[in-house]
Structure formats: structure tokens, C-alpha cells
């Protein structure tokens, strides 16, 4: 069977994608009761009459959940409604103890927002509309393979507050879907409302995708794609499902409105075995919770208190630091790293140098230690000082790297380390010449070949000299001296 490349298909057919994203809010307690949301407790320990749905129990709304949900909606440029209504979504499932989920239906918390994507891929941003953001509670966990023949239910997670973010069907490719998700995740991290980790389940994605011939105005029948566990999984699943729909349509068939499940290991989608049309959630306003009234003043204050969002930060980095977009993307990916970088750059003054060090040494250290910038021992002021030492010619770049390693280990300031370990730059000609002589003596063959014109051996010899100097030798001077000694 010949399958067309996605590019070929997309020349003639258009992919239309909408995404529904569930984000778990990082509150200490659940949405409607005071049970802890802390991860990793033994099963069913974080439960109470309310989240166990014992007869007679009633929900009481968590103020922090409202605050974080509002913050998220504002960060997505939505209109936050002064009055929104909770609703019951009725269905039977063992991890949904009440037999209904408290959610929001026709009067959600927020409507009419957008996320801008594509400013990284090329310079023309695309706006993906956000139809609505609403609040709801999470279900518990159903574990099907722990014991044979039964499903094990853990209700620790049941009642954790979520927001559901529904996009308009504005995305036109898997890349755009991926870009939307990455931007959304970054925004949520910047405003600190969620851990937004697909691996941990604090961010979940369902996709709606349809196909139509390019130029057609009407939307094709869409399917819902579920069970993706990573952003790249979403992108792949969308392409696979799009291809399936196009092949079907090309062959004169029709796309059935159904739920498709992504199988990551097989790289396939297959229809859910459940009969479509059996969803009747019988939504009605939650009688145990009066409507949620938010004052316009409070909403305005929440909007005012929003931290700088990723797009704004990136734009400001362009203005303030004149960095290239790749550097900006790396430095602003994580808001706390961006904070760290800015502190270093503003203290030291050379934005580019600061960028190189943070992107290079700092991120490498964090990665190899598996640690968070919050726990990083090198304070921004100290790193700035180190960069001052380099730019001031007090230590060489090579020595600086060594000093940095010591700073990570000890937390000591750079000047102290440089002095203590004798890493102050050496540019005394006599000393440098002495080291060069040693190198030439150590590697006479290479020295001869260099003298005879093999220029590339310069690096080897300079490197050896640097090593002898324990990184303290001024490389520029070394180069000059070597050239003078061996002619070039």
C-alpha cells in the first residue's frame, strides 16, 4: 500500500484541528473539600465524606481554585464572566463517585480568548482562538491491571480542581497543534497555576480533527482523538488520523463521527469500541452550589497582577538584550531561568556573554545534576561577577569554566576561588614562553609539522600550553608567542 507523504496530502487537503486541554490546578486541597491533593499517598487515604460521595455530603468551593482558574483564563486573553454557573455532568463510572462530575456547562468561567503561536517558527504569529475556559473536578484513578479480573479504584485524585481549555478549530497542521500546546504549557508555567506535565497527568489533551479539500468553506466531519501522552504523540496522532480521513474521503467514503484512540507503540489510531451517541450527560445547574459571582474589581486586579507572559517576555528580550530568537527561546523557556538570566545580564552588562554562559554552563549543570534553578548554588550576582572577571581580563575563559565548576560545588564567590586556586590569568611573556618551550619539547614532531605549515596543529599546541598553565594562560598572548617562535 502506498501512503502519501503528509506534505502531498496537505497540498490538496486541509487539516482542521481543535484541542481540548485539561490542566490540573496546583492547589493544596481539592476543589470541593479540604482533602490534600498531594501526590503519592497510599490509595484512598486522601478522602473524606465529600469526595467519597457519602450520602448527605455537600461540596464547598476552594477559593484558590477560583483564583488560579481566573488567572489562567486572563492569561489566555479571555473574558472572565462576573457570573458563572456550576453544572452536573451525569455519567456512571467507578472513578466518579457521585455518579456526576461537577463542571460548568452553558455559563462557563471565561470565554473568547486566544493564544498566539508561530512567532518562533517564523515571524508571523497565528492566533488560535480559545472558546472557553471552565472549572471542573477531576475523577479518581482506575487501574485495570493490578489485580486479575477486577479494576482497582483510587479516589485520592477525585475532586482535584481542573480547568478545561477548549480551543477554536483554528489549527491547520500538526506543527501548529504542537506549537499551541507548547505555548499553552509555557503560559501556565509562567503564571504558576499548574505543573502542566503530560507525563504526570497534570496536562491532558484530546484532539478534534477533520479534513476538507482546500478552498472548501464547510468543515468536514470531525473525529475525536484520545490517549496521547506527549506533545509529539499529539502531532503524530493528528497526522495519522488526518491521513486516514483523507484516504477515506478520496476513495469516496465518509468519515464517521467517532472517537479514535491513539496507539503510540503501533503508531496507529483505531476506533473506540464504544458506541457513539450514548453520551447523554443530562447537564443541569448544580443545585448545591449557587452561581459564582466575581466582582469586576477583583477580575481587574487579577488581570493587573498577572506576571509577564512568555510572548511579552520574549518581545522584551528582543528590545532589552538584542539576542537572536534561538537564544531568547532557550532563555525564556522556563520563567525562573529567564529571571536568573536577566539578573545576571543586568548586573554584568553584556547580555550576549550572559546568554552564552546561562545557556551553556548553567543549563548543562542543571541538566546533569537533575536540579531546578531554584536550588542552584550559583547566585546570579556571583555568576555576573565571574563574567566581570573574564571581561576584565583577570581570568581566562578556560579558567572561568573551572572556577564555575568550583562555584557549583561550593557556592563560594568567584574572586575567592580564583585566588585560592591560583587561577588568575597569566600574561607574563616569560612564563608563557616557558610553557610553550615545554610543549615544543614534549611534542617535537607536531612542532616541526606546524613550522612546516600545518596550521591546524596550532590548536593542539595552544591547548597543551593551556593545560600546562592550568587554564591560566592568556590564549591571545600564547598565540602571538607561538607564531613568533615557530613562524607562520
Amino acid at each position, binding site marked *: 500500500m502506498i501512503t502519501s507523504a503528509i506534505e502531498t496530502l496537505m497540498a490538496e487537503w486541509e487539516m482542521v484541528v481543535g484541542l481540548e486541554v485539561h490542566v490540573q490546578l496546583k*492547589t*493544596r*486541597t481539592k476543589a470541593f*473539600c*479540604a*482533602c*490534600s491533593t498531594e501526590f503519592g499517598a*497510599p*490509595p*484512598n*487515604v*486522601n*478522602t*473524606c*465524606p*465529600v469526595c*467519597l460521595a457519602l450520602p448527605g455530603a455537600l461540596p*464547598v*468551593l*476552594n*477559593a*484558590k*481554585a*477560583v483564583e488560579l482558574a481566573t488567572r489562567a483564563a486572563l492569561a489566555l486573553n479571555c473574558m472572565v464572566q462576573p*457570573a458563572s*454557573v*456550576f453544572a452536573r455532568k451525569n*455519567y*456512571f*463510572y*467507578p472513578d*466518579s463517585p457521585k455518579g456526576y462530575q461537577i463542571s460548568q456547562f452553558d455559563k462557563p468561567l471565561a470565554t473568547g480568548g486566544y493564544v498566539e503561536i508561530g512567532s518562533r517558527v517564523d515571524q508571523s504569529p497565528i492566533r488560535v482562538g480559545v472558546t472557553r475556559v471552565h472549572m471542573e473536578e477531576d475523577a479518581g484513578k*482506575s*487501574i*485495570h491491571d*493490578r*489485580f486479575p*479480573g*477486577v*479494576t*482497582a*479504584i*483510587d*479516589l485520592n485524585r477525585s475532586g482535584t480542581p481542573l480547568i478545561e481549555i477548549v480551543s477554536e478549530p483554528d489549527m491547520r497542521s500538526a506543527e501548529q497543534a504542537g506549537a499551541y500546546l507548547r505555548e499553552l504549557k509555557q503560559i501556565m508555567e509562567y503564571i504558576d497555576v499548574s505543573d502542566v506535565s503530560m507525563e504526570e497527568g497534570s496536562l491532558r489533551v484530546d484532539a478534534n480533527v477533520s479534513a476538507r479539500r482546500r478552498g472548501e468553506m464547510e468543515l468536514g466531519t470531525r473525529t475525536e482523538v484520545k490517549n496521547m501522552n506527549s506533545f509529539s504523540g499529539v502531532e503524530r496522532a493528528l497526522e495519522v488520523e488526518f491521513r486516514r480521513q483523507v484516504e477515506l474521503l478520496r476513495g469516496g467514503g465518509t468519515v464517521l463521527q467517532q*472517537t479514535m*484512540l491513539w496507539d503510540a507503540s503501533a503508531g496507529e489510531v483505531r476506533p*473506540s*469500541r*464504544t*458506541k457513539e451517541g*450514548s*453520551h*447523554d450527560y*443530562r447537564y443541569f*445547574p448544580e443545585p448545591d*452550589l*449557587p*452561581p*459564582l*459571582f466575581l466582582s469586576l474589581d477583583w477580575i481587574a486586579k487579577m488581570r493587573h497582577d498577572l506576571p509577564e507572559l512568555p510572548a511579552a517576555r520574549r518581545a522584551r528580550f528582543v528590545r532589552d538584550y538584542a539576542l537572536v530568537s534561538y537564544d531568547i527561546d532557550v532563555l525564556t523557556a522556563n520563567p525562573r531561568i529567564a529571571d536568573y538570566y536577566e539578573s545576571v545580564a543586568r548586573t554584568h552588562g553584556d547580555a550576549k556573554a550572559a546568554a552564552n554562559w546561562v545557556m551553556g554552563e548553567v543549563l548543562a549543570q542543571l541538566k546533569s545534576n537533575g536540579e531546578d534553578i531554584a536550588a542552584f548554588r550559583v547566585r546570579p550576582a556571583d555568576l555576573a561577577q565571574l563574567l566581570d572577571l573574564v571581561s576584565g581580563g583577570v581570568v581566562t575563559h578556560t579558567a572561568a569554566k573551572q572556577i564555575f565548576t568550583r562555584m557549583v560545588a561550593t557556592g563560594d564567590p568567584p574572586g575567592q576561588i580564583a585566588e585560592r586556586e591560583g587561577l588568575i590569568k597569566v600574561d607574563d611573556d616569560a612564563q608563557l614562553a616557558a610553557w610553550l618551550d615545554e610543549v615544543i619539547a614534549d611534542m617535537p614532531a607536531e612542532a616541526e609539522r606546524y613550522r612546516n605549515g600545518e596550521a591546524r596543529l596550532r590548536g593542539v599546541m595552544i591547548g597543551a600550553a593551556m593545560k600546562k598553565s592550568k587554564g591560566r594562560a592568556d590564549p591571545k598572548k600564547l598565540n602571538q608567542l607561538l607564531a613568533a617562535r615557530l613562524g607562520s
Partner: protein
Amino acid sequence: MPISIDDVSHIATLARLGLSDERAAAVVGELNTILGHMDALSTVNTEGVQEAIGVGARGTPVRSDSGPPLPLARALAAFAPSLRDGFLLVPRLSSHESVDDA
């Protein structure tokens, strides 16, 4: 609008009532009688009338994001029908792809 026996079977399934066919047949008549009385509502002009919703102008109260959680005088083990290693047990779903499998 009268309900049919198929309607009754459908809603009994939605409500997981396990209604037998005989019982469904018996209840169709009862429900239709009751619903017949509800038709009187359609004679009332409700244009522009808000649905009765919520209590008071204050809206829903909120609580602070802190414990302690409501205590249980008896642990789950005292009243749960089927528990193992702290997990609640239910018959395994034949397919667990969707809430409608349950």
C-alpha cells in the same frame, strides 16, 4: 409527547436501573400518565422568565485552600463492599476506553 417502551429502556440504561422488560412495560403507562399532567406547563407564558437558580444574591461561598479534611469516624474498610490493599474493587471493565463502558 408519549414515551415508548424503547424510550423507557433507554433511560433505564442511562440510569443503570436494570429494569426488566416486564417492569419496563408496566412503567410506561405510569410514566405517560404522570407526564400527561405535566403538559399543563406548556400553557404558561414563560417568555423572559429566569430559571429558578441559586440561593441569595451573594453567590457561592468559597473556603480557603487549607485543611484539615473532614474526618471519618470509621475508615473505608469499615463500610466499603470490596477493598484490597486500600483500593476499592469493581468488576473489571471489558473495555475501558470510555465512560459508557461502565
